[in-house]
Structures are given as structure tokens and as C-alpha cells.
């Protein structure tokens, strides 16, 4: 019994991270049609920032979380200003925005990843943080994984609350429903777009910071998370935040059980299989009505 609990819980823990990464990506796509395939690279930057703060300045990784989020938010504003603002202004159609932003983020992916290689080398880095085991209902976890789960869920829920209960959140949701309509009632794209892009990167950075507490990090760590996040937002429906949250947990659990019954090296194949099945059966996402 405790074994199954452990399996399900480890799926949920991974799923929590997937959810945070996917929500950020989904916000960017839902609002601006920016399919940012360099998303995972910013997760990697968040991980390296936390690692640097911990090893050089001896800062507790949990304390550096807000700092990492702020840094990535600022970086997001910069990246949006330099790369995506022009696309949004000059592209003739929504399809052109999608295609061009995809290519630009493809370039960003290579830029950021190789900058990280240049700065920190290809070695795996890591530090030990809260690695002692904790026992809950007969199942054993390392404490850092529980912390990771807690913060991932908290970050997702805070974001959902912001979207649902604040005026800015309302503006974001309005703009997702109808960009023209939202502009007609006075919602300012020039403020909202960079902000949401920044929030997306901040979430990626938080996810990276959390991951660095548990796993070893490397400049190439981001790419698999990008692919996973893309799968998750397909599961949950493009643009749907709640869908991304649920989709993240679902994929995490499916992967955990799938890997148990087959083999850990099939992880990518499993999530890809889920991806293709969903695309074929329910292209608008599992939760679409």
C-alpha cells in the first residue's frame, strides 16, 4: 500500500513542477500567441541562479526564490521588449506571430543554452539541501521533494488566484477571450503583454530554483521541460491555466506509473504517446467542453 502511495506521490511531485512550467508557457501562448520553446532555458537560468546564490553567497535556496523570480521577471521584460514586441507590431496575421515568435524563441534557446555552457561549462552541478528522509503514512520521501511540491503547488495556486480575483487577472482573462474587445474597454496591451511574459519566465525560474534543490543541474536541463510543458498545455488546452495545472499532475502520475510498469528510459516515449493520443482524440485538450 505504502508503495503505491509513494509512486502516486512521486508522480504528483514531478507533476507539480510540470504544472508550474506549463502555466507560465500557457499564459504566454494564450495571451500573446508566443510559442516560447526557449521556456526551459529560463528554467535552467533560475536553477543556476539558485545554485550560485547557494554555493557562492551561502544563501538558503528558499530565501533566494523571490529573488530568482524577480530576476527572471525583469529578464522577461527585457526579452519581450527586445524580441517579441516587434513581432507583435509588424506581423501581418496571428499565424505570422506564431511562426515568427516560434523561430525567435528557437534562436533564444540556442543563445541562452550556449551562453550557459560558456559561463558554467557542461558539468553537472548540484548542492545538498534538506536531503534527509521524512516518513508520511508509511511512505518515505526526502524533505526537499516535499518542499519542492509545496512551493510548486503554492506558486500555481497563487497565480490562479491572481488571475481569478484581481483586476489585472481579469484583464488578462478578458484579453485571452477577445483581444480586440479587451482593447476596446481600455485594457493596455503595451503594459499587459510584457508583464505576463515576465510572469511566465518568473514561473519558469521558480521551477528551476526548486528543481536545483533536488536534482543536479546542467545547461541542457531545460529542453526536456520545454517539451513536457508543451505536452501538458496540450493536455490541458491551449490558454487554460487550470487545465495546465491539472494536466501537469496528470502527466506526472501517468509517467510515474508508466515508468514503474515499463522502464525508466521510456519516460519520454510515454509522455509523447500521451501527447499524440490526446492530439488525435481531443485536439482542444482533455478538459475542453
Amino acid at each position: 500500500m505504502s508503495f503505491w502511495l509513494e509512486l502516486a506521490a512521486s508522480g504528483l511531485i514531478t507533476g507539480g513542477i510540470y504544472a508550474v512550467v506549463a502555466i507560465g508557457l500557457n499564459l504566454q501562448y494564450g495571451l500573446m500567441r508566443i510559442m516560447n520553446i526557449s521556456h526551459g532555458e529560463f528554467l535552467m537560468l533560475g536553477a543556476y541562479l539558485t545554485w550560485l546564490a547557494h554555493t557562492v553567497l551561502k544563501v538558503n535556496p528558499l530565501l533566494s526564490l523571490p529573488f530568482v523570480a524577480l530576476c527572471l521577471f525583469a529578464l522577461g521584460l527585457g526579452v519581450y521588449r527586445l524580441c517579441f514586441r516587434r513581432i507583435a507590431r509588424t506581423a501581418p496575421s496571428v499565424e505570422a506571430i506564431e511562426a515568427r515568435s516560434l523561430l525567435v524563441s528557437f534562436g533564444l534557446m540556442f543563445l541562452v543554452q550556449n551562453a550557459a555552457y560558456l559561463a558554467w561549462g557542461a558539468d553537472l552541478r548540484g548542492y545538498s539541501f534538506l536531503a534527509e528522509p521524512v516518513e508520511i503514512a508509511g511512505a518515505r520521501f526526502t524533505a526537499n521533494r516535499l518542499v519542492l511540491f509545496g512551493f510548486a503547488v503554492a506558486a500555481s495556486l497563487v497565480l490562479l488566484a491572481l488571475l481569478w480575483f484581481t483586476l489585472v487577472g481579469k484583464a488578462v482573462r478578458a484579453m485571452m477571450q477577445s483581444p480586440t474587445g479587451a482593447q476596446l474597454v481600455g485594457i493596455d496591451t503595451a503594459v499587459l503583454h510584457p508583464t505576463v511574459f515576465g510572469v511566465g519566465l518568473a514561473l519558469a525560474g521558480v521551477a528551476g530554483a526548486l528543481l536545483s534543490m533536488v536534482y543536479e543541474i546542467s545547461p541542457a536541463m531545460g529542453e526536456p521541460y520545454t517539451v513536457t510543458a508543451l505536452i501538458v498545455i496540450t493536455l490541458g488546452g491551449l490558454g487554460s491555466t487550470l487545465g495546465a495545472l491539472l494536466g501537469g499532475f496528470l502527466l506526472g502520475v501517468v509517467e510515474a506509473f508508466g515508468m514503474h510498469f515499463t522502464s525508466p528510459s521510456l519516460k519520454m516515449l510515454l509522455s509523447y504517446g500521451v501527447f499524440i493520443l490526446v492530439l488525435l482524440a481531443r485536439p482542444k485538450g482533455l478538459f475542453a467542453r
Partner: protein
Amino acid sequence: MTLRNTWIATLAAGVVLAAAPWTLSDFALSLVLTCLMYAGLTVSWAMFSGATAYLSLATAAFFGIGAYVTAWGLATLPYAVVVPLGGLVAAAFAALVGAAILHLRGAYFAVLTFGLGELVRHAVTYFEKSYAHTVGRVLIDVPAGTTVYLTVLLLAAAAVLTSYAVRSSRFGLALAGIGADEERAQTLGVNTRLTKIAGFALAAFFAGALGAAMAVRWTYIEPNSVFNPFIGFQTVLIAMVGGAHTVIGPLASSVVFSLLTEFLRLQFPYLFLILLGLLLILLVLYLPGGIASLWPIARARLAALGARLAKLEGGGARA
């Protein structure tokens, strides 16, 4: 250019390049080989993705499939069979995947093809580990360098000719029609589904065959090297630089980029990729049509300049 002139030009270039193994040094020959490989990859990529605006990031997957066909088949089959076989396997794979995902437009399609390389790479790694108990494969008994060069030259020339032939055929017009407005093309009686699958598979054939042909150049094959996302990235970048709507544009820029790659990638691997990333971003932002889109402008400017000069001369003569 008319189709006949293109044939003659391509054949002439092919004959000149075919003499390279006997006239050039080994180093120069390997440079030309890289150029030809990227030329073939880029031109065939542009044939489908440039025309239809379906952004395929799967080149690395097809290339790797071709390379693995060689890795698995070269022990029992001759090189001349393995290369087209690699292309056919890649094309069959593309047709299969295409049938499942080509009804998805825009970002979904690009995203799926982006993950395709990862998927195939993991599948091959898993297969090799659990059934063949190996990580990579050493290719022994590879054909001579000249054979490889001539094969790649043949494939690149075939890609260029096919690309031109497709552009002036009903099939090519259907592809371009899908790129311009898919629903309109469908209304006008184009079987868009079949056309897209055929175009995708045709592009994959060349990528796969090139992968199969080039595999013997690296004596050691492993999933991480042949499914390298860099191959797909470089292909898209070159086509974008040259202008994906043309054939000449990608062809010209693939020469420039392969030379750059050969010289810079080994010396400054990371910095080089950072620069390429930056270049792609700048290009998409400021020149989405590629260098080829500058030609009509440049030609118009030249014509205007010529007219002004003629006027000046005329004025001078009168005075």
C-alpha cells in the same frame, strides 16, 4: 529561370563539382561535402515548409533515421541500397506521422515536429540498450570518401532539381496554395491532406537519404550525435536566411553557413551557436523574407539608378 535552363545549370554545376575529388585537397573536399549536405537538407526543407508555411523542426529526426538505417544495414547491404533505403524509411515515417499530425496547424505542428527528434532518439537509445546491448555503433567496412562525396552530390542535385520540378507542377502549386490559404485551396479542389503528407514525406526522403549517406563519414554512430537538434536548427536558419520561398536563396546561404560552421564551430563551439541564435532572432525580426526578399528591392533600385544615369548622360549630351 525556365525549367530547361535550371536543368542545364544544375547539371553543369554537378559536373564541375563531380570533379572535385580529383582536383581539391582532402580538407577542401570535406568543406564542399558539408556544403552539399546542408544544401540538400535546406532545399528539401524549403520545398515543403517554405511553400506550405508548415514549420517542420523534424529534420534532425529524419536525418537520424537515415543514419541509423546505414548503421543497421551496412553490414549486410551495399551502400548503394542503404542510402535510398534510409530515405524511404524516413519518408515512410514522415508519411505515418504526417497522417496523424498534419491536420494540426501552426504552433501545434511545429511543436510536435520539435519533439519528434527527441522521441526517435529516445526510442533508438532504448532499443539499442535493451536489444542490442550497446550505446553506439562502430561502422566498419565503409565506402571510399569519393563514393560518399559523389552520393551526397547526387542527392543534393536531385533535391534542387526536384524542388524546381515541384515548384512548376500542379503538386507544387497545390503546396503553395496551402501556404497561402488552406481553406481556399481545399475549396478549389485540392486534396490538402494528401498533398501535405506527400510533400512532408518527399522532404523527409531527402533528409533521410542524406543522413544515410553521411553516416559513414563518422565511423562511430550514437543517437546523441545523429539526432543532434543542431542539424534541424541549422537547416531552418539557413533556409530563413536565404528566404524559404526560393530555391536559390537557401542554396547560396547554405554555402556560406557550412563554411562558417566548419571554421568556427570547432574553435568557438558555444560562442558560435550563441551568434547563430542571435542571427536567427535578428533575421526573423528585421528580414522575415530572407536575403532573397532583398533582390526585387535591389533590382528596382538598380533600375532606378540606371534610369537616372541615362538621364544625366542624355542631359550632358544635349548641353
